[in-house]
């Protein structure tokens, strides 16, 4: 089946993934346009990582199609940059920050390569772009979580992918590192015209920069502008139970109501307590 060409960079059509009899993703359809910043939001275990792995070609789909630039991705290559969930890098790993970024250029190739001035400058420029030039000669295993994320973003972007996937890059970061990473990503996405798909369980740090949101719950997705998607009706349908969306001090909280709350609300309405 061929779909008509569109301006979409990435397109998922009715993707389902079943693993060991369990449905991990159900009829997921979404589109990402070039240069767009998309948040992949949802609770832990909702299927965010599986969805990213499907896009990368690491997880085969049970049904459905994944199209990159209007065609199935022919082979795994560097067209998609990937920053996996928290890496466990030992402090004695003999890789300096600049080595890690350099591996982003051609780490998948066999044989040795000679160092060159051009490569060195390319790596330095990339490190400057993510604000990691200060620790270019430090071992990557000695860095803090936020510093490592910057290095991995540089590693992923140096091969100039059209799409950058990040799996929970903000998990376990303090607030200032979190903001730093988000602003670096937003700036680079615009400057380099890279589409960003970033998974997170908390959407709030991303609200200022997100063009669109893909909300995942129980293996299903809702896609659209944050205002359209983050609504109690939409999310309740997704979760399959009643969910409240609370906006307080400019932050959004998604709260699942306890079991049986529908009946309580109905009863409350009867006596005129709830509006």
């Amino acid at each position, binding site marked *: 089946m061929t779909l008509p060409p569109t301006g979409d960079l990435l397109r998922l059509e009715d993707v389902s993934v079943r693993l060991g009899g369990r449905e991990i993703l159900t009829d997921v359809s979404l589109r990402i346009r070039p240069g767009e910043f998309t948040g992949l939001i949802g609770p832990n275990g909702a299927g965010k990582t599986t969805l990213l*792995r499907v896009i*990368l*070609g*690491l997880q085969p789909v049970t049904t459905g199609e994944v199209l990159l630039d209007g065609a199935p991705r022919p*082979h*795994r*290559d*560097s067209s*998609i940059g*990937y920053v*996996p969930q928290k*890496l466990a*890098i030992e402090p*004695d*790993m*003999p*890789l*300096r920050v600049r*080595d*890690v970024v350099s*591996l982003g250029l*051609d*780490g*998948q*190739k*066999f*044989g*040795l*390569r000679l160092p060159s001035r051009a490569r060195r400058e390319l790596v330095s420029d990339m490190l*400057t*772009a*993510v*604000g990691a*030039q*200060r*620790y270019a*000669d*430090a*071992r*990557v295993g*000695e*860095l*803090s979580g*936020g*510093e490592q994320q*910057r290095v991995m973003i540089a*590693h992923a972007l140096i091969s100039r992918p059209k799409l950058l996937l990040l799996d929970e890059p903000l998990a376990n*970061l*303090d607030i*200032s*590192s979190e*903001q*730093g990473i*988000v*602003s*670096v990503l*937003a*700036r680079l996405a615009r400057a380099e015209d890279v589409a960003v798909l970033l998974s997170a369980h908390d959407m709030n740090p991303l609200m*200022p*920069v997100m063009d669109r949101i893909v909300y995942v719950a129980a293996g299903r997705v809702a896609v659209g502008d944050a205002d359209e998607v983050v609504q109690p009706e939409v999310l309740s349908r997704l979760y399959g139970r009643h969910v409240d969306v609370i906006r307080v001090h400019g932050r959004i909280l998604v709260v699942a109501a306890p079991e049986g709350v529908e009946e309580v609300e109905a009863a409350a309405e009867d006596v005129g307590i709830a509006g």
Partner: protein
Amino acid sequence: MRYIFEPGFFASGPVHVALAVGAVVAITSAVVGVFTVIRGQSFAGHSLADIATTGGSGAFLVGINQFWGFLAFGAGAAAFMEMIGVQRRRGRDVATGVVLGAALGLAALFLYLGTQSSSTTGASFTILFGSIFVITTSTIPALIASALLALATVVVLARVLLLSSLSSDIAAARGVPVRAVGAAFLMALAVSVALSAVIIGAVLSTALLIGPAATALRLARSPIKAVVTAAVLGVLAVWIGIVLAYDSYYWPPAGRGWPVSFFVVTLVVAGYLLTFLRRRPRRSAPHDSHDPEHACSPA
């Protein structure tokens, strides 16, 4: 000088062979060792050494050079480990408890039967603890060729191995055949263990594999520097070990030199421990952890 190098050291044929083969094996072990430690496969190296012991003992029993036994059993074990996925924790536990015990049990049987039939009691010692002064000249080409093969494998895979150790998912997403690369590396590891077994013995072979590499990883920051440092340390340990073993011929009990493997392993361990005396240069840590935003203003 003559207090360090006892008379006849430089004129001795076995010493020449020992120095040359020792250097080649030390370099191979060190280079393969760096990647073994990076990949967290020291355990696999140790398992291969145990199984190589069985191979060496079997070779002795049937009367062929023990190198072929080390090599055949090591390579077979590497293939088997790849099949059962010994990288996984459960696979490791099973392998430790069952397979390695069985392998060493068999080694004990082979050595017992071998010494019974040939009444050469030195053989057990040679297989377990090495024989760098009695390397059979005819195996030297095979030793060198195996070493070059293992080195070439690691050179070809170097970048891919580094990327996979950073994240096997990134490597896979970029088209690296992660599984095949792992299998090829495991083979190089098996060859390296077999070589090391020839010079310092099957039981001690991991010392030469892991020791210089672990020491180098504490000292060097980049992959190239780590590999070069490990190779230099490995060669130094083997060469100084050979000199001391030669000298020890004049030490008590007189007329019976101490084993080379004792010196090599002691030097390797001493080198590793010495790195703990060196204060590690720390980055200016405290303010870095706050990760302030220098490069760009908030969006």
